[in-house]
């Protein structure tokens, strides 16, 4: 079995593969780094930042609600579509348009640089389909709106990379993981989940929480119903399900719903979950 560890996407990433060459894993790492650079909101020249800026371009003519259409790459187009799908599937709880609220809470720059002083919270965001429109090769935003792909991008990338690397691989991108195939024994890849180890085979897992990327008076998980950092009796939720993208969405929904409603929401969707 070959493995590779590296830091990207704001955390530790690990790639494992049976009958996969070291060169293939290295190529996977390079792809993750390229995508990280394209999708980060902390680099003003990233594709995502330029897309967010489009809501303020001169083409955002007075009297028009939307900014101009912007050409986007196939990857960004797919991720924006995935964000819209996540919004619907989560009943509005996974909302990629909370970036203005996140900035107002003080998360304006790379977390390692520390939070900035919070500003007045904007009103809770309008439904995502009213803020973002996507068409083949292009997308546009309502003026003043901004997108943070956050965990959706991590999960989506884990799914794509596992599919690309081979039939017996495990991809863990900063906590969002996809286990494809049965691992070395064929029974499944041993993955820590809560305080247990589970054998995952063609299964994904993700964790959402409020305990990291937290600062005095706030944290990074915005509740789109209120536009401010979520108040939940749960501090961490892990979910496993058939794709890492779905796991990321479900974990976030469960955390926002809290311990009373999360199990009911998850029971028809997930093969397992851990609530803390």
């Amino acid at each position, binding site marked *: 079995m070959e493995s590779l560890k590296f830091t990207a996407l704001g955390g530790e990433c*690990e790639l494992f593969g049976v009958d996969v060459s070291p060169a293939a894993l290295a190529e996977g790492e390079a792809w993750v780094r390229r995508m990280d650079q394209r999708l980060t909101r902390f680099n003003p020249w990233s594709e995502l930042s330029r897309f967010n800026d489009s809501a303020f371009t001169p083409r955002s003519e007075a009297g028009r609600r939307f900014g101009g259409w912007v050409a986007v790459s196939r990857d960004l187009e797919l991720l924006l579509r995935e964000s819209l799908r996540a919004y619907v599937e989560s009943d509005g709880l996974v909302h990629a348009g909370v970036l203005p609220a996140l900035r107002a809470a003080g998360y304006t720059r790379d977390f390692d640089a520390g939070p900035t002083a919070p500003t007045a919270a904007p009103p809770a965001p309008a439904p995502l389909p009213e803020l973002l429109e996507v068409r083949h090769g292009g997308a546009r935003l309502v003026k003043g709106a901004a997108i943070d792909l956050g965990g959706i991008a991590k999960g989506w990338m884990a799914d794509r990379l596992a599919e690309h690397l081979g039939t017996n691989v495990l991809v863990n991108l900063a906590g969002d993981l996809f286990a494809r195939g049965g691992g070395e024994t064929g029974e499944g890849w041993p993955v820590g989940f*809560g305080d247990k180890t*589970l054998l995952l085979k063609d299964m994904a897992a993700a964790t959402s929480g409020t*305990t990291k990327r937290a600062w005095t008076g706030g944290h990074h998980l915005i509740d789109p119903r209120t536009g401010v950092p979520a108040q939940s009796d749960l*501090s961490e939720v892990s979910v496993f399900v058939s794709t890492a993208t779905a796991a990321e969405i479900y974990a976030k929904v469960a955390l926002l719903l809290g311990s009373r409603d999360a199990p009911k929401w998850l029971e028809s969707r997930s093969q397992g979950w851990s609530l803390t």
Partner: protein
Amino acid sequence: MTMDRAAALRAGAALFAAAAFVGSASYVVAHPKNDAAPLQPPAETDLALRTPVPSATATPARSARATLAPRITLAPGVKPTVLPGITFTHVS
């Protein structure tokens, strides 16, 4: 005169020693060991129940995960193992 002064000093020293002995004995009798006495400083008994407080800096606050056990629900057919995990899902 010299003898009287020396005798007075001896008597004073003896009285001081006797007073110290009686005082110490009285203190010990009045303060027996109490096994039920509270610890000083008081021990934190409700630490696990407290909400984690975010740090004052950008350093991520550590979770209550260390003190609160996660509640895990698994669908039938999901296989736990005694093998150590080679990786794990986590917040980033």
